């Protein structure tokens, strides 16, 4: 597909040309009686044009991680660590500067497109406003950009679409509009929080195909959050598996699917749904998602793990997974006491290896 949207990259600064660099991110919600530790130390890097899947059960902290990337967490959240989008630190940055980065540096699309657009304004009004916030263009140019963006997401008759109100469109059309709105800001990173969960199966597949094409044509990095490992396999370059506020395994899609190493990942895979069955499918893993105000000590998965031993009551280090099927094993790691692999000499050694890969 030729690209109708003329994309001039948002400046990516800093070392390694990472579009997203999350370092030791912790997010908690202090309450009167207990504190919910929604995210407990996450490291995650996404390079230019990379599609990174983030999977895990409901409540594992995926959405909170996504919102951290745009500084969209509610005021009640306590955030520690660093999140850099195109080299710009998000944590502690004032609203005004964040507003520029939102949409421009990283844009977000949401689970339920039916609720994501304001019902009282036409699609055009909303798109124009967003484009105006990020780009210094005349009225006519803004309209032209909006139409181009709608063409890029393959929405028929963009001219008419701009005049419509959200209630006059289907869920699939609305998700395309939201994606177009994101594209029109020319972001370097698209954060997609379960963007297909609310859509029916055929539309899901269309949106996935569209995202893949857009990533390729616009050199757009995507953080793709989903319940659905099937979608990850068909779309992503890399995948991180999240459990109880931590990433427990991460690797290239090829490596991780060939050699799932964390018991939780394997459980996820054994319940892997057909594309489209989506939400309910992960509920088959026996046991409860831990209460995040008092997560289990050590490896958080140990109460539900068949392999759990006394060792699992201690925190598990990240271990590089070495497999005979692949020689690019440096990027695949899991945090489990039972993984026999190459232990990195230190955390830094691991992150260096990962950086090398991502560069």
């Amino acid at each position, binding site marked *: 597909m030729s690209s109708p949207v003329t994309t001039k990259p948002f400046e990516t600064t800093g070392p390694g040309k990472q579009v997203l660099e999350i370092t030791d991110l912790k997010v908690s919600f202090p309450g009167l009686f207990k504190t919910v530790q929604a995210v407990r130390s996450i490291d995650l890097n996404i390079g230019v044009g990379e599609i990174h899947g983030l999977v895990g059960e409901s409540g594992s902290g995926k959405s909170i991680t996504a919102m951290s990337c*745009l500084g*969209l967490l509610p005021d009640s959240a306590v955030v520690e660590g660093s999140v850099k989008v195109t080299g710009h630190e998000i944590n502690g940055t004032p*609203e005004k500067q*964040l*507003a*520029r*980065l*939102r*949409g*421009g540096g990283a*844009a*977000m699309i*949401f689970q*339920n497109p039916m*609720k*994501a*657009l*304001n*019902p*009282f*304004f*036409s699609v055009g009004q909303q798109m124009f*406003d*967003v484009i105006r*916030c*990020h780009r210094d263009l005349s009225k006519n140019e803004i309209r032209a950009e909006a139409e181009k963006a709608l063409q890029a997401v393959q929405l028929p008759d963009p001219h008419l679409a701009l005049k419509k*109100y959200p*209630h*006059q469109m289907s869920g699939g059309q609305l998700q395309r509009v*939201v994606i177009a*709105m*994101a594209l029109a*800001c020319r972001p370097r990173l698209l954060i997609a929080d379960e963007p297909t969960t609310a859509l029916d199966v055929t539309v899901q597949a269309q949106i996935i195909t569209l995202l893949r094409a857009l990533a390729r044509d616009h050199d757009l990095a995507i953080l793709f959050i989903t319940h659905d490992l099937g979608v990850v396999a068909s779309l992503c370059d890399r995948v991180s598996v999240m459990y109880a506020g931590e990433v427990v395994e991460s690797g290239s899609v090829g490596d991780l699917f060939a050699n799932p190493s964390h018991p939780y990942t394997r459980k996820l895979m054994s319940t892997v749904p057909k594309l489209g069955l989506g939400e309910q499918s992960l509920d088959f893993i026996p046991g409860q998602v831990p209460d995040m105000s008092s997560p289990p000590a050590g490896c958080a998965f140990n109460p539900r793990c068949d392999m759990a031993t006394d060792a699992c009551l201690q925190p598990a280090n990240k271990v590089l997974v070495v497999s005979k099927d692949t020689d690019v094993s440096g990027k695949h790691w899991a945090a489990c006491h039972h993984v026999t692999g190459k232990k990195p000499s230190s955390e830094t050694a691991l992150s260096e290896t990962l950086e090398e890969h991502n560069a």
Partner: protein
Amino acid sequence: MAKYIAQRLMMMLLILFGVLTITFVLSRLLPGSPVEMMLGHHPTQEQIEEARAELGLDLPLPLQFTRYISDLVQGDLGKSLRTGRPVLEEVTKRIGATFELTFIAMFWVVVLGVPIGVVSAVRQNSAVDNVARAGSIAGVAFPVFMLAMALQFIFYGQLNWLPLQGRLDAEILLDHPFERITGFYLIDTLLAGNIEALWSALRHLTLPVLTLVIVTLATVTRITRNMMIEVLSEEYIRTSFAYGVPKVRIYFQYALKATLIPLLTVVGLTFGYLLGGAVVVEFVFDWPGLGGFVVFSIAQNDFPAVMGATLVLAGTYLTINLIVDLLYYVVDPRLRVQ
């Protein structure tokens, strides 16, 4: 759309008919007879019979009612027993004063209440929010007539900044007369270019308007705040934030428009409060409007006057709410049929 308006108009007529029936029945059932009022103390039985016949009170009730309705349809609201003049004339003479008072109060309630409500919602538990909440409790707890008299005591009695009552200074009528075209003195004096009268009218309006604003502002502020909080938690508001739309624009454009629909309802209701409040306020400030007229007429068993004025007040309230319903169409695209 036309069908909708027709439906609403039918509804309005039905409600008005209900109001009529209730006031009619009440006027005939309540103790105290207009005849006593007309005839003074110790009338003879003969005199009473005569007066009753004159007023049509000797007829059976259903007949009285149908007669009242048929007169009404011909634009005849009967004669005031107190003044002996047609009720329609008495009512139209006073309605301008009531409208001027309530419309201006309405204007301030909306202009102050909506932004304060928005700010309270955006900055929950801030100084603005706390003052607004304390104010809303005080506003509801304080009786209207006490507030009116307290304001009179302070601004007239102690400070002597503002007049005690009425719509104009007495001298104005002599020295700077003006033609009453709309019945809104601010507009009439402006049209006449009569600055002295305009100033006098403004000063007289201040305290009654202030009283009405104080007693209704808190309600509007609170409802706006709660509705705004609800809207701000909507996903589409988060979308606006996620795309870098500036805060002020999100609050005052995207969120406020969504709040506008419930807010319109509130404005319609507020007008009801204001009309209710106006009855007391007009009485305390000797304001020559419909509210004060109703109070006097009730006190003197002037049934035709009470019924006529009630009908007009109810009609006004219903009209305002009809306009509100029509405005929903303007605001909410989902209601517009393509």
